[in-house]
């Protein structure tokens, strides 16, 4: 269905989002038979087992009064950066938080559908959310280091999770991965609050990596940062995909195009389009996507 006529899409009108085409109009990263227009440089993750599979996910706040996500299905490929974009309130952060069950910490929410990480149903009855979060880490919008030293911030999660190896080495490695080591190696035992916002955010990334997750979720990790700090964080993210699968929510389309391999565009709780980033930004399939990426709304 990914080749349906764009003219069918009534632009911007919310009503059109309810069209059933969206149910299967998603570009499921798996390029079945006819890979749409040009299977360009980015190796399409066809052969690879997806890291995260989201299947027909519905999510409600307020005991079902607010339908935040509607029939979302997507596959997230391993060792790639997947960006979730869309206007405020489109559900991108909600979707992100479903992937490590952080939404459960909010009262009165309802979820239907499934999410599999490495083929394991993370919402299965016998799946423990705490174990899911050790596998799927998260970096938040505002840097939120603990009011502790830099060292303790990085070691915290590993300690809680019963890490018994060489903590010094783990802290160093995590800080190096987050491209922060050189800046803080002489002040590991001073407060994390002495760091700048950008450094704090990279510390939060290091803290997440120290738990050895497979997937790292990032919720607008650079939106509270200045341009220089942003570019540092972006560099870090690009480095990280060698070892991790990264899903990043951003409202900044330039950022999505700079750092992501795949981009999913969400609008009013639905997935409008998911494609390799170059394609989505240069040859969007849907009119609504084009309207959004060219800045006509959003």
């Amino acid at each position, binding site marked *: 269905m990914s080749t349906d006529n764009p003219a069918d899409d009534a632009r911007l009108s919310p009503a059109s989002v309810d069209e059933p085409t969206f149910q299967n109009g998603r570009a499921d990263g798996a390029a079945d038979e006819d890979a749409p227009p040009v299977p360009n440089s980015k190796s399409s993750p066809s052969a690879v087992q997806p890291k995260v599979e989201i299947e027909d996910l519905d999510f409600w706040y307020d005991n079902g009064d607010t339908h935040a996500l509607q029939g979302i299905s997507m596959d997230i490929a391993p060792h790639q950066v997947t960006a979730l974009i869309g206007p405020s309130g489109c559900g991108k952060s909600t979707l992100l938080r479903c992937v490590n069950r*952080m939404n459960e910490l909010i009262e009165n929410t309802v979820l239907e559908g499934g999410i599999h990480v490495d083929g394991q149903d993370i919402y299965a009855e016998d799946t423990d959310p*705490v*174990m899911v*979060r050790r596998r799927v880490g998260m970096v*938040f919008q*505002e840097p939120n280091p*603990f009011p502790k030293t830099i060292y303790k911030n990085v070691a915290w999660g590993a300690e809680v999770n019963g890490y018994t190896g060489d903590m010094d080495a783990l802290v160093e490695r995590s800080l190096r991965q987050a491209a922060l080591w050189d800046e803080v190696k002489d002040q590991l035992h001073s*407060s994390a609050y002495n760091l700048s916002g950008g450094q704090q955010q990279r510390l939060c990334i290091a*803290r997440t990596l120290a738990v050895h997750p497979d997937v790292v979720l990032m919720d607008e990790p650079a939106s509270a940062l200045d341009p220089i700090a942003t570019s540092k964080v972006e560099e870090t993210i690009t480095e990280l995909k060698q070892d991790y699968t990264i899903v990043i929510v951003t409202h900044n389309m330039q950022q999505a195009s700079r750092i992501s391999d795949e981009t999913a565009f969400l609008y009013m709780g639905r997935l409008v389009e998911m494609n390799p980033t170059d394609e989505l930004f240069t040859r969007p399939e849907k009119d609504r996507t084009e309207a959004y990426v060219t800045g006509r709304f959003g």
Partner: protein
Amino acid sequence: MSTEPSPTLDAPADDRPQDDLTQQVYNSPKERAIKYLLGACALVSVLTTIGIAAVLVIESIPFFQNVALAEFFGDTRWTPQFANKHFGIWALLSGTVLVTVISAVVALPIGLASAIFISEYAVPWMRQILKPGLELLAGVPTVVYGYFALTFVTPLLQTFIPGLGVYNALSGGIVVGIMIIPMVASLSEDALQAVPDSLGQAAYALGATKFETVVRVDVPAAFSGIMASFILAVSRAIGETMIVTLAAGATPRMTLNPAESIQTMTAFIVQVSKGDTPQGTIVYQSIFAVGLVLFLITLVMNIIANRITLHYQERY
């Protein structure tokens, strides 16, 4: 004061009021008067404290002219009303310490645990019942607590501890503890609530359980507030009078045995103040010396509390 715009110059085209910019509004007498009034109010408590300290010191001087400091701090008996007078503060101090320690053992864990439950575990409707419930407990007059100790807690304890006297430090201490639980719980809960949600979220996202998050993130982050609640509550226990007067006895005794009848410093002051001790006698003067010791203890505790909170504070 003068709120009317002063019509100067030519009338402007529109009827926008033309204020005289040199009009002294910011530094007007009214503004200054308010400043001084507020300052005076702020001074009341400071001056009162200084006044109390001064009275205690001045009134204690005659006492210490009769009783050497060496005796005051060296003797272990406190028998001002006997023919053979002894003025060893330790007998009263140990009573106060005993009651305070027992009350702290009761109140600090229960108070903190309640605070953690209300702040982190309770669902909204539970919180709506528990918080006012605790505050109700704080509103019970201490004389009622005193009777509660004497007529309920002591008989209850006697069923467990055979031979326990009617007056004993244990019963008084437990009830003083119950009295200060709301203080610990309420202030600690405020401190826990003040910890930003984002810290807990970070902990959960790192795969921490609820308990790990509470113990290793929320409580340390709220440490200075929790410590402040402890110190305030313990200070309150040290100064508590009615419960111990009613339930703990009137027997100054240097002991750390909670089953014994004791007398606290506050209870001694009550006894002398309410009695027929004539002014000017050494017994009368002794209550100022005891009061001074109480005051100093509280002062030192507050200083220690400040040091601790400054040193261990986790800023967020």
